[in-house]
């Protein structure tokens, strides 16, 4: 078996496909890096504008309510609330002004604390049923969530920032420090399905090359079990593809770090697993889970590719089969009436890692651990299919 693995590795390690895929992954992950070079980062300015817009909006509402000649009790209550809000938002604006001025004054928490205070106010008011009267700050690049859980998440987020003295990183920040750069790519810029798509192409090439080149007969005539040959091919793929991707991530991390700084893996992402409570996940934890899920998905796709290669040596069929599975993993398909009830039992329901990890999918899912289990379970089933075919046919 080791001889076969070594032989397979030798055949494929110098393939130009490895280099091409390395470059392709790198270009995808460095997209934001290229954008950031030579352009001014406007994210802080956009955030400042968001604070200012909220302030202006509340001021306008106060003016309109003040002009009413005979306000009702409800309108008076709203006016009182608006006056509380404008006070809180002005603290935010002032705290931010200290940080963005040409000579920054104050500390990070001079902004974080007012933001936390406003978040807590919004939570209280939402719980009291006054959500309609709130003027929420629209963070650029982040969809606004006016629900109760949205408010809880905000409070939890700013509590963490205050406790750890960490500055908020805007989602639109192109020159994010290294620790945030990679997770941000997956969170805001790059669908994991595209990364998986490249793996599908690599798999298609690797698993059909023997049949295409006509050397499959030599393989089939080797005095060894054919399943061992297939497993050796799988190990070869994993030995080439995963380190290749890991290297890409490392190069990306180093490139971002040397240019934009290193940042902290403790930066928080906030999510809600049950829809009722808000929890914090650090970037490091998020990225680790992302890698785990990526490996599981790649394993599944590898088994699929292996199975398809036993049925057809055509690289087109192999790649299209893999890509078709990825199409099933899109939001449009999984949220549709037909697939939605089944989504949590299918591996494709867990391919959009970022949404799954942060529990932001539009379709029902189990936990992350269960999701990984489902992916691997299906991978095992596909492997079982391979075993049946190979044992019956006694050839690849």
């Amino acid at each position, binding site marked *: 078996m080791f001889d076969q693995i070594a032989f397979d590795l030798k055949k494929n390690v110098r393939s130009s*496909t490895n280099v*091409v895929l390395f*470059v392709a992954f790198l270009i995808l992950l460095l997209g934001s890096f290229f954008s950031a070079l*030579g352009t001014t980062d406007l994210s802080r300015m956009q955030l400042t504008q968001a604070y200012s817009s909220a302030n202006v909006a509340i001021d306008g509402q106060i003016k309109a309510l003040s002009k009413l000649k005979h306000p009702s009790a409800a309108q008076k209550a709203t006016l009182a609330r608006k006056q509380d809000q404008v006070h809180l938002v002005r603290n935010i604006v002032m705290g931010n002004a200290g940080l963005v001025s040409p000579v920054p004054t104050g500390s990070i928490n001079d902004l974080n604390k007012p933001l936390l205070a406003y978040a807590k106010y919004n939570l209280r008011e939402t719980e009291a049923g006054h959500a309609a009267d709130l003027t929420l700050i629209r963070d650029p690049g982040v969809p606004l969530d006016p629900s109760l859980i949205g408010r809880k998440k905000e409070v939890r987020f700013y509590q963490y920032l205050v406790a750890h003295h960490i500055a908020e990183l805007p989602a639109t920040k192109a020159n994010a420090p290294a620790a945030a750069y990679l997770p941000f790519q997956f969170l805001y810029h790059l669908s994991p399905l595209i990364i998986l798509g490249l793996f599908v192409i690599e798999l298609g090439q690797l698993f059909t090359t023997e049949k295409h080149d006509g050397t499959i007969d030599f393989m089939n005539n080797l005095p060894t079990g054919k399943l061992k040959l297939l497993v050796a091919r799988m190990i070869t793929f994993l030995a080439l593809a995963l380190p290749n991707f890991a290297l890409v991530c490392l190069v990306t991390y180093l490139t971002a770090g040397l240019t934009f700084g290193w940042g902290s893996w403790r930066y928080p992402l906030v999510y809600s697993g049950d829809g009722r409570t808000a929890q914090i996940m650090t970037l490091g934890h998020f990225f680790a889970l992302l890698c785990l899920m990526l490996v599981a998905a790649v394993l599944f796709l590898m088994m699929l590719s292996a199975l398809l290669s036993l049925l057809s040596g055509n690289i087109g069929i192999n790649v299209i089969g893999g890509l078709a599975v990825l199409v099933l993993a899109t939001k449009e398909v999984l949220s549709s009436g037909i697939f939605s009830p089944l989504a949590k039992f299918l591996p494709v329901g867990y391919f959009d890692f970022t949404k799954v990890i942060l529990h932001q999918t539009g379709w029902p899912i189990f936990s992350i651990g269960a999701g990984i289990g489902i992916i691997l379970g299906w991978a095992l089933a596909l492997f079982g299919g391979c075993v049946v075919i190979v044992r019956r046919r006694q050839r690849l």
Partner: protein
Amino acid sequence: MKAQLILEWKKQPWLLHLFWFIVLLAVIGSAMVRAETVRTRGVSYTGATADTIYAKPTTASERHYQTILYQHGVANNVAYDKQLKRPTSPATRTAKKILRQFQQRDYLSFNRSILAIIQDDPEQAINDSIADPPFDSPDQAVTQLTYMVKHQCNRMLQLDAMTAVINNAASAFGINGFKSNQNVTTLNTLILAMAMTLFCFVFYKDRREETDTFMQLAPLTRFRQALIRGGITLGLINASLLAASGIGVIILTLIPGHEFGTLLFPTAYTLFGKPVILPLWQAFLQLWLLYNLWFLIIAGLALCLSLVSRNQLVGIFVIAGVMFADKLKLLMLVPLNVQRLLPNGYLNATDVIRHPRDFQLIPFTHSLTVLLVWAAVLIIAAWTLMRLQTSGVAGRFRREAPGAHSH
């Protein structure tokens, strides 16, 4: 030559052509159907009874909707005349005339009447919803209606803009100017991907399968062979596109309540601050030219890469990197003034043909020239590389040993 044509025809990847044809049919067809449902208009009338009328995405339904609008217009004018206790006013007479022309499908006279109204009082025309979409402004309305009248076109602009099949086809490709296809980027990407995979397949085939020696020994230059190979592929890609679009147009036209529309339909855009008319036939022709120039660029790239590499995937990825350099943010590495000289800036059909935003100052001929120059450069580069390889100067082979002597 004929023999080479026949051989290259047989060598084509027919399954791949079929796959892309099906994909195009699905994407273009669904875009055309979606274009029909972009806007369902409704209007409510209160009075003796509250009445809400919606326009469904068929010409018949839109006609019915418009008829109701004009009938209510006439009724309002008559009621107003009665209220003011005055004889039938010119406005009422005009409204009745327009209604009659519309009902008789005398759109030529209808267009003349509308044109007169807008020219007379543009603001009032907007208030009265006469200069409704598809017009962006009274000026544009005047320009388009004048075109219709001048070319004796017996079609109604609003009807066709909302429901004509050929207009929806134009929307699918992002060149209508009225309804936009949110997925036109996806369609463009798919068309480019189709060209990339097909040209890479045909140009890499001989090297991959080691039949290149056979081809090199045929008494026909390699460049001519490549031209024939590329030409057939280009023809088949065009046939796929035409068939996929044509089938959608034919099927929708045959569905009751639909009308084909007219290829003379005058879409409008702004260039250098002035409104310019672009009839649909011209927009389609520009689109066809644009696509074929992209195809030539991709073919040139694929041919050049196939001369230096045997790995088809490398070719596809390199071409994808070049064509989508903008989306991959690779262009950020290039100075802005150089970016405008690269073909990547002209990949969006809607931008190049309809001239929104930055493209308001870039005429179509400019875009065409940039793409044409790049296509020519790449094809000449391929020719040069072939010549160098044939003469042995390309250094792929070592030269004869020194110290030669007779045998």
